[in-house]
């Protein structure tokens, strides 16, 4: 059977072999690279299905790699970064990375992120679902893009115009984490000041309308310090 090729650019040997072991055991084909320059040349020669990139490489800034890949490819990129480096994660996501993992991470988390990222480029699931039916469904939540309404268990959740736009945006990119800045730009234009407070308060109100327990959300999860993520549709 054909295996997905995953290029791993990571300078720490321990983590590299851990990732390789987990990936091999789960039917992926890992290609290992120890440095940014090496990784860049592997990228063109192997044409991997996904790039797993450590942001703290010794020879190159991980951001440069993301930017140069994004110039010619939509290859899914998952970045690895340490806790306390929220700003790096946000910058990587804004530069075009698809997802991130915080070190230290577990095998299950790594596989889940890889699966999501690969499936996304293959099928463009949410957008195809939206395009064919005009709706996005997940669990008991339905976003109706034609009627501009959100339904929970068939009932209108009575979101305001602004709240609907936030949910609609998250639904369009379901499964992916959207950074605060990205959302603000999309919702209120490039000149809006990046004040997260309005977004946070709106989100708290949205959760009071669509979640059974607003403090324990099921549909829209918080990625602390980074942004929000709508869980994937079905």
């Amino acid at each position, binding site marked *: 059977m054909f295996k997905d090729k995953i290029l791993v650019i990571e300078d720490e040997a321990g983590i590299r072999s851990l990732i390789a072991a987990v990936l091999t055991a789960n039917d992926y084909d890992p290609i290992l690279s120890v440095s940014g320059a090496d990784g860049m040349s592997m990228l063109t020669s192997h044409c991997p299905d996904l790039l797993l990139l450590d942001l*703290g490489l010794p020879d190159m800034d991980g951001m440069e790699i993301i930017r140069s890949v994004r110039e010619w490819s939509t290859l899914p990129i998952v970045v690895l970064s340490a806790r306390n480096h929220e700003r790096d994660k946000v910058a990587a996501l804004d530069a075009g990375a698809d997802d991130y993992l915080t070190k230290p991470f577990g095998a299950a988390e790594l596989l889940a992120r890889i699966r999501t990222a690969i499936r996304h480029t293959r099928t463009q699931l949410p957008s195809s679902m939206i395009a064919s039916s005009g709706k996005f469904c997940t669990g008991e939540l339905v976003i109706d893009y034609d009627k501009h309404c959100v339904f929970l268990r068939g009932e209108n959740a009575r979101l305001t*115009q602004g709240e609907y736009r936030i949910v609609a945006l998250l639904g369009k990119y379901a499964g992916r984490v959207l950074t605060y800045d990205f959302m603000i730009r999309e919702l209120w234009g490039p000149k809006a000041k990046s004040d997260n*407070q309005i977004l946070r*308060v709106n989100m708290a109100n949205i959760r009071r309308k669509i979640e059974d*327990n607003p403090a*324990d959300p099921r549909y829209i999860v918080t990625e*602390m*310090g980074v942004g929000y993520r709508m869980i994937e549709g079905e």
Partner: protein
Amino acid sequence: MGGFYWVYRQTEGGALWPVRPANGGMGLLSGSGEREAGGLSPKKDPLYNFLTSDYDILWRQDLKRNPRQEVYLRAMKRTFHEWFRVSWRDTGVSLAILLGAVALCAVLLRLDPSGGYASMVFVLAVVCIARYTAGYLYGIFASFVGVVCTNYIFTYPYWSLDFSVAGYPLTFLAMLAVSIVVSALTTQIKDHERLRSETEKEKLRGNLLRAISHDIRTPLTSIVGSVSAILENGDKLPRADCRELLTHVQEEGQWLINMVENLLSITRMEDGGALLSRQPEVLEEVAGSAVQKFRRRHPAVEVSIRAPEEIALVSMDVTLMEQVLMNVMENAVIHGQSTTAIHISFRQERETVTMVIADNGGGVAQHLLPHILQDTYAQFQDRRSDTRRNMGIGLSVCRTIIAAHGGVIAVKNTEQGAEFAITLPLTGEEETDV
């Protein structure tokens, strides 16, 4: 001013690696630019030692916010720099105090035209300047200015410099000498005080480091032991035993990660919390996110959380606040022994919000109640050898973090178990319509 530039590249561990000199400056260290590929360790690098032992970093600029940022440093020989430091702030302070002295003398001149108090007022100004500026430069400078001002404005002949009147040379020389000596003494006392508080801090830090190293060694020994047992006996070891050893390794590893996360939080808290990045956040969102993270680590514990009716906005550093919640919940599991459920609720007052984290475990031992929320440093200072491992660093970190946010953390035992209450000040809600 002299000094030189040097470019350092900072690695993830926080060490500085020399890369190349930029802009020769004094040219003191030029010609050492081939270190780029060398990869010398900062400890072995004579240049680095030289820089940090005898020189002060005058100015530094971080070029990129990423783990391998480049840092421009400008350094200068320590003693000279300390004594004669020039800064906008100190210049401003000196000028303000001198102008104040002139104004005071001008007012007094109306009341008493003799002008005999002018020299005293200026000596007082010199003391103030020496107290509130760094180094000797401004005190000495102010002494001269004081003498000139007194002579020029406030003594006969008015509005002209004249040191030749009978008795003047001695008077003004004495005034100059007194001013300079007083300013030098003030500066010295100030330096001594600073040195003493720094030594004290160093001592506390040393204690903390010792205690932590001790704590870290125990799980590491067990990890290395377990892993080598598996590696060496590979096939002979029954599968179940192997699994048990590995589970143990995972637990100890997780404990070490928590420890390190707490240490990272401590370093962020230093310098009076200057490194905190605070923003208004919705409290329930932060708590909810911590709960979801906690569930992944401890799937066996049932955690419930009830959102408040009203949205509570609190200005906080999310990473640290999440750490607080994780620590309190971890504590409930590890030290509550029989904890199976944790419940988080909120109580909102007019200007504060209180987050209550209650568990159904064994509660906190009565004799420990007053101590578990002590200050980190204090706790490590009077720690005895019989204290249990991990007792406290998590909770004392919580206390420090909450205090830096202007809040209070309290603990009490209830009928069910232990209950932690974290009270934080609310921030005003601004216009939130889209």
